[in-house]
């Protein structure tokens, strides 16, 4: 591709942006339907409570926690096949069920795999096949294929902000169509997406693609339809030490913010240890605000998102409910603005709309129960916050140094030498030297911190905490501990045996 913007942390000029837009909109016919002026006129007709940036800002101001179901996946597709209706109509039915029975504050649509892989041709074949045969072959919503018309049908049928759950390394065309249709949020991140979901994607491509989405989001924000960017901290979803999660989401928040967006909601992933989770959310808010100010993005509104357990879920619904309620307590007590709610049947495969609604109602009940109660400071909490903070600072600052003040430049080197690293990532270029394990209290520690530039004090702390476990259990400090921990939470305990 020619004339790509330089790979650095600068706001793309209008020329750079427009040059790339032409290409993006040309990748599929529905791209031609996007006209920014028409879109802005349409978005003016939508009430503010259907906008995610507005909803999160309200919640942040009032100290409330809003709920979004995590994944509706291919559920609507299945429903479409069963009932012989169009996939769009099935999505609307499922979203309404989650909105009305589940009291969801925010509604997600998930992209199908072809759309995530930018294979619109195959997606189109499947759309036709679904229509013709009354059977679904799509595991998500093909935004590009349905185009503005299809997306606006969804927008007009429901009454909550809509989020596109992408996970792709390139969702540029999708977001063009989604924003023009009245969607207002996307889990994103140029360095996050390869680490989370991709084997071979080039870092530079992923960063550029998400810079594009942010640049587009900034344009809409500047034209009266603010876009929220939920920087997605799920990563590999397996035993992520909080400081790794925080480093990733703060760095990607900075990269996105450089394009001029004004609303960001970094997403923290639950560890399951209450103190560590409360500490994680609080440090996240503090550091995200601080780094935004340091890079002169102080006018960016930072809310926080809390992911309920993203690892293996229990099969037993009673355990599943317990896990969901437990995570919800941490989200509320930690002061998260948004909680991403797992369905009760997460372990058994495809969750029904009811399983989503049940989890939402359980979460809602916890939010209501705890809304007037605060989890105040304590020595344990202060200690946990201290280490998460100094570790995150050390990693983020080293990335900034490596790029001579430019985070985008810094991340490339940081991944090469393992300054940025994540356990259990599927992305081949990652150093993959970090090994986590839980301590006796179930907090996630570094068994091996690889090349992460952690302060000596923190390394020693993690080592000590794990040695206590080793001493009490009589087991050596090795990756057998980690293996036991991977399954423990779904079996009803934090630390493996």
């Amino acid at each position, binding site marked *: 591709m020619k004339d790509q913007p330089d790979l650095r942390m600068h706001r793309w000029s209008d020329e750079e942006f427009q040059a790339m837009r032409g290409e993006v909109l040309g990748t599929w016919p529905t791209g031609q339907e996007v006209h920014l002026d028409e879109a802005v006129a349409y978005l003016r007709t939508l009430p503010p409570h259907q906008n995610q940036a507005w909803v999160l800002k309200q919640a942040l101001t009032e100290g409330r926690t809003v709920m979004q179901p995590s994944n509706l996946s291919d559920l609507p597709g299945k429903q479409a096949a069963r009932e012989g209706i169009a996939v769009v109509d099935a999505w609307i039915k499922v979203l309404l069920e989650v909105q009305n029975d589940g009291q969801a504050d925010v509604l997600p649509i998930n992209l199908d795999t072809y759309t995530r892989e930018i294979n619109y041709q195959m997606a189109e074949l499947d759309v036709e096949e679904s229509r013709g045969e009354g059977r679904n072959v799509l595991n998500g919503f093909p935004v590009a294929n349905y185009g503005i018309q299809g997306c606006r049908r969804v927008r007009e049928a429901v009454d909550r902000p809509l989020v596109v759950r992408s996970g792709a390394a390139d969702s540029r065309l999708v977001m063009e169509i989604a924003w023009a249709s009245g969607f207002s949020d996307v889990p994103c991140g140029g360095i996050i997406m390869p680490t989370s979901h991709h084997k071979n994607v080039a870092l530079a491509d992923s960063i550029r693609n998400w810079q594009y989405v942010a640049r587009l989001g900034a344009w809409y924000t500047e034209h009266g339809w603010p876009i929220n960017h939920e920087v997605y901290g799920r990563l590999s979803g397996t035993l992520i030490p909080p400081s790794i999660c925080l480093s990733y989401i703060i760095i990607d928040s900075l990269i996105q913010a450089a394009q001029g967006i004004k609303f960001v909601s970094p997403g923290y992933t639950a560890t*399951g*240890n*209450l*103190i560590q989770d409360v500490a994680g959310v609080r440090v996240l808010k503090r550091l995200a605000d601080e780094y935004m100010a340091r890079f002169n993005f102080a006018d960016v509104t930072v809310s926080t998102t809390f992911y309920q357990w993203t690892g293996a879920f*229990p099969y*037993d*619904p*009673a*355990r599943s*409910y*317990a*896990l969901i*309620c*437990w995570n*919800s*307590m941490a989200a509320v007590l930690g002061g998260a603005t948004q909680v991403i709610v797992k369905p*009760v049947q997460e372990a058994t495969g495809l969750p029904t709309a009811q399983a989503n*609604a*049940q*989890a*939402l*109602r*359980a*979460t*809602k*009940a*916890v939010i*209501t*129960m*705890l*809304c*007037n*109660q*605060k*989890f*105040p*400071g*304590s020595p*344990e*909490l202060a200690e946990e916050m201290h280490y998460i903070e100094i570790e995150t600072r050390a990693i983020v600052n080293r990335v900034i140094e490596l790029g001579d003040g430019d985070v985008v430049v810094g991340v490339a080197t940081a991944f090469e030498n393992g300054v940025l690293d994540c356990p259990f990532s599927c992305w081949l270029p990652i150093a993959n030297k970090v090994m986590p394990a839980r301590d*006796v*209290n*179930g*907090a996630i520690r570094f068994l091996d911190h690889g090349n992460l530039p952690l302060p000596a004090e923190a390394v020693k702390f993690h080592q000590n905490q794990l040695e206590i476990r080793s001493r009490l259990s009589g087991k050596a400090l090795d990756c057998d501990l980690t293996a036991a921990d991977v399954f423990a939470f779904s079996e*009803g*305990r*934090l*630390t493996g045996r």
Partner: protein
Amino acid sequence: MEILQRKWDLDYFVAERPAVLAQWPTGQGVDLEEALAYHRGLPGGRNAAHALAAAKAAGRVLIQPRAGVALIEEQIELLRFLQDHGDADLLPSTIDSYTRNRRFAEAEAARKESLDRGRSMLNGFPSVSYGVKGCRQVVEALERPLIVRTATPDFRLGAEIMLAAGYTGHSHGAMGDLAYSKDTSMEEIIYNWQYVDRLAGYYEDNGCPVSREHYIPLCSVVPPGHQIVVTVIDGLLQMGQGANHCLLGYGQNGSLHQDIAALQVMREMGEEYAARLGYTNAVVTTSLHQWMGGFPEDEAKAYSIICAGAAVAAWGGASMTIVKTPDEAFGVPTREANVQGCVATRTILEYAACSAFPETEQLRTEAEMLRHEVRAVMDRVLDLGEGDLARGVVASFKAGVIDIPFSPNQHNRARVMPVRDWSGAFRYLDPGNIPLPATVWEYHQEQVARRGELEGRKPSYNMTIADIYALSKGLPLGAGARLN
């Protein structure tokens, strides 16, 4: 008759027994010496008092569900299901209403009818109908300690039979019964429960301790300070009869800080007053009763209450929790629902054991207020009894120093009005004649006034009415949950 705290002489106790055992033919099957031999022969881990003391020492929380049906085979099957699938640590036998009210003939008829129809025609387990032999079948079929669960002014015969059968835990005491009887006098209730305590004391004197458990069924409307007072009194009454293993129950009200503080203070006060009255061998443990008000029909919301209760049990240092079920709103739960309640509770207990709830200013304030209140009332009770607790209790009810809101018992003064504050914590709207220290009363008024500001109305009994209506819908916390 004058009721005193001192331990009944053995001769007196022995002389009282024949009349009790004569109430129903199965009473003749009770042989205390045989029973003691049976208790001594029970395998380790089958004694509730020992299990609770061990849990206290290890900082663990035991789980007990509720369950009782008419037929022995079904009772066994139900309990085995809870033991094997719910991993319940303590197994209950909840007694049916006829047996509780000593209508043994009717219980027996319903038991037979249950047998004919092949399904339970009773709302619990008619232990007196079955006698020692029948109850022992239940004990022998299971591997965990068995607990008698009842609430009645007079369960003397049932206690004789079930303890002799090998049950090692027995719920309820005199104070708790004010929720279940209309006109039984305080003296009579205390006397009847002293009998049960003396019986438990006899087992204990012979090396076979029985866990005596107390709580007020009206706990969803009684402010925690008063819950602690009456429950600790029940504990002290049992200690007076030589039953040292005392399990004090507290009912979850949903206010995290108040629930945690109350559990901590309940144990502390139980130990403090046991020491003051000279019961140096007392073993005081606490339990958390998951929300005793109405449950939401939505199982998702029910789970959230169960989970919050489990977390509070762990953080408040309880040694046991009585679990509710996700089907609670629909009446007697299925065994599957009961297992689900146990499993969800166990899961949260595991998680919560990893993270202590911080010792905070709010928690300290709440605990301090509870201590002030409990000591003031307890000391007044002892004063009124001129040093004798039992005498003091009788006098205190007359004077309204002890006063249980909404009790149906006519000897209760019923001048106290509870209300929830802005955060959902329980306070006194009107403390009646309860001798609250001034600092405590001011604190309560401040917290309630704050609710008034938020709701834009003056604190009044309308708030209490709103709270009571809200009870039936689940935990009445959160903005708007208690407005009507």
